[in-house]
């Protein structure tokens, strides 16, 4: 029973009874380590299968399947496009061009950088989820959330590295002053979204971008672009480290977005649908490797509307008409309103009011970013995939 009213919320929440919600919440908020319904540790992900280069007609593609049967396919397509900005810049005086407000923020000095540094709108992402229209809030929000971290990553000029990736993904898409690549990332969720699909889609997009190849450029400088016909010599969008360079972890990789919930003082990764429905707060965290290849960088934290506030409250026995009937005072009119009581009764579900403690955020970032933490393990796991 997916309720369209809740579609924008963290997932279509299953109807859970107050007793179930209370049981789940108490289990997950136990101070000495939460007990998850499927026995995972708080930082453990569900096992998944991954493969890349599955679609022959794309520049790059990947498929990931979770053990519970949810699957996603991502295809990346690249197109050469004329840079409209370049001609504007030549005139020097077109300052209020609405198409590129972000690149013009820092004044006259940035005028050549629009063509040199690339533009965020060159990466387009569309997400298709069964049961949702493509202009529904959930797919739009998801795609913007993932695109933002893709475009925003590695904006610091990585000095000492290959100049190819200096400006991040945006910079890589620049061919010359007048031409650029446009990247279409099409994300397709093959199954019903059993849980909030963000981590699945983000990991799949990560692998697809890694396997993306662009044809080798034959023309030079400001010529009209002209490419090598041989697909065998095509270059990866995210260039591979040359074997001569330091072998490990020097490759620049796209960022990944992880889904985290907080329940009580606990922080839980890769939640399933039931766990999300009792969460105090739902957060999406984007991380990537530092440009030096050492350590991690936090790109963004976004909060997602937790569905727990829409759940039905439980009725404590002291206010329950049907349990009081046995003791004889069934005419208590105040008890007819289940939301009248404000104090927490152990064992009774109260919808969460949202909000997140500062200490929880600190704990969260620490678990993700610390050496050998979750973020590093996820990225290492992804690096193990053959692309």
């Amino acid at each position, binding site marked *: 029973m997916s309720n369209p009213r809740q579609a924008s919320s963290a997932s279509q929440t299953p109807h859970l*009874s107050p007793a179930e919600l209370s049981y789940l919440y108490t*289990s997950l908020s136990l101070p000495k380590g939460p007990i998850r319904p499927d026995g995972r540790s708080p930082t453990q992900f569900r096992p998944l299968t*991954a493969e890349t280069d599955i679609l022959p007609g794309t520049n790059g593609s990947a498929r990931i399947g979770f053990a519970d049967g949810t699957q996603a396919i991502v295809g990346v397509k690249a197109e050469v496009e004329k840079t409209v900005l370049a001609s504007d810049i030549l005139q020097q005086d077109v300052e209020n061009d609405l198409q590129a407000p972000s690149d013009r923020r820092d004044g006259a000095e940035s005028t050549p950088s629009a063509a040199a540094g690339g533009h965020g709108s060159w990466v387009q992402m569309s997400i298709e989820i069964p049961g949702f229209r493509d202009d529904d809030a959930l797919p739009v929000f998801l795609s913007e959330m993932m695109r933002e971290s893709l475009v925003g990553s590695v904006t610091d000029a990585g000095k000492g590295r290959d100049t190819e990736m200096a400006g991040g993904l945006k910079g890589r898409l620049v061919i010359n002053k007048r031409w650029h690549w446009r990247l279409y990332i099409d994300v397709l969720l093959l199954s019903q979204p059993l849980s909030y699909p963000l981590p699945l889609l983000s990991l799949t997009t990560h692998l697809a971008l890694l396997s993306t190849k662009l044809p080798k450029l034959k023309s030079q400088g400001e010529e009209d672009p002209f490419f090598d016909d041989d697909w065998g010599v095509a270059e990866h969008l995210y260039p591979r480290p040359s074997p001569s360079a330091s072998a490990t972890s020097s490759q620049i990789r796209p960022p990944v977005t992880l889904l985290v919930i907080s329940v009580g003082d606990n922080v839980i990764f890769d939640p399933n649908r039931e766990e999300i429905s009792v969460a105090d707060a739902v957060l999406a965290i984007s991380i990537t490797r530092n440009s030096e290849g050492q350590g991690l960088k936090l790109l963004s934290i976004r909060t997602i509307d937790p569905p727990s506030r829409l759940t039905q409250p439980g009725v404590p026995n002291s206010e329950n008409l049907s349990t009081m009937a046995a003791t004889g005072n069934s005419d208590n009119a105040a008890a007819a309103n289940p939301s009248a009581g404000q104090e927490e009764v152990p064992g009774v579900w109260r919808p969460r009011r949202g909000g997140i403690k500062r200490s929880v955020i600190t704990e969260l970032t620490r678990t993700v970013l610390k050496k050998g933490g979750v973020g590093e393990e996820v990225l290492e796991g992804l690096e193990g995939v053959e692309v």
Partner: protein
Amino acid sequence: MAITILAPVVEDVRQDDSHAPHGYADQSMSEDSDSDVEMGGVSLSQKRRPRDSNNLATGIMTPGEVVTDDPQWMRGHGTYTNPLSTSIIATVAGHIEKVNKLISVRPLRARYTPEIGDLVVGRIVEVQSRRWKVDVAAPLLAQLPLSAINLPGGILRRRTSADELQIRTFFSEGDLVVAEVQSVHQDGSASLHTRSLKYGKLRNGVFLAVTGTGGSGASSSKPKKSGSSLARDWGVVRSRRQVWTQQTASGGADVDIILGVNGYIWISKHVEGTDAASSASENVSITRMEEMVSSSIYSSQNDEISPQTRHEISRLSQCIQVLVQNGVRVEMETVQAAYEASLQVDLEVGDDEDELSEEGRDYLEGNKASRLIELVEQRWAKQEKIE
């Protein structure tokens, strides 16, 4: 390790290749040499399943696939014939079953078909003026009339208009109930009742939905004495004991398990309520006892449950998940065997690598699942030998 990424498993198609009269080899040759138009027709007609000695197809059938061309067979459930030909075609995905000359296809999973007397777990989805609509995984929602529940204050009390107004205090949307099918209507929808102390609202535990054939057709099948006896009917089947109290290890209290025939399962902490009521007041009449018990029957407040018990509840629910994922049917014996096996697996792992797997050692569905199933099958084989 927080995340495990596996390579995709590809079913070996080579095996079929040797049986098929026209293998994949000629097919690929024609694809290379011929034009597109020709290719489509050729490849479709050549893909035929291997046949056994009776000229029946083997393996899992898909809808629309020809089971046999031989006119000696009669068609049964899950099949149809074209009036102009003798071939029998499958209408569902599943295994072939033959009884003498009758061919039927047994679906891998199906919706639950209610039968009178079935014990089901259901979720209230709608409250109407004098009845509830209950989701029991059947094609139609079941109904639970207000007149078919035990009203608080004794079984002999008359239903009044006040009860009709307070209908949500008994069950409201999202609540889980355990009930019995009282009657089945012409259209296949069921009427439920909860007129027993065993039935009523569920609390203190977790809910689990498993797929399978539900009760449909499974009632007649005793485990056949063959190698595949365990893996014949998936999901929950009708059996003598679908509600029992399981003693748990490692400090957990007793746990109640309710296996609904419809594939909905409830695992909860055992509450001494019913026993206590009868033992504490032996001289109380039957109706009075009813009264005392009913004070908690519509409660949505959980009792206090220790972390150890929560661990064991989570372990039991995982055991059932693993059974279902591996196509083993769920009943008291298999669940108990799986539970014991899971304890044994824990011990084995504890010997192998003590500190290393501390993280997420409760998670059964990953690597441990295969070992668990192996142990269950061993136990099963032993049991059959004794019989």
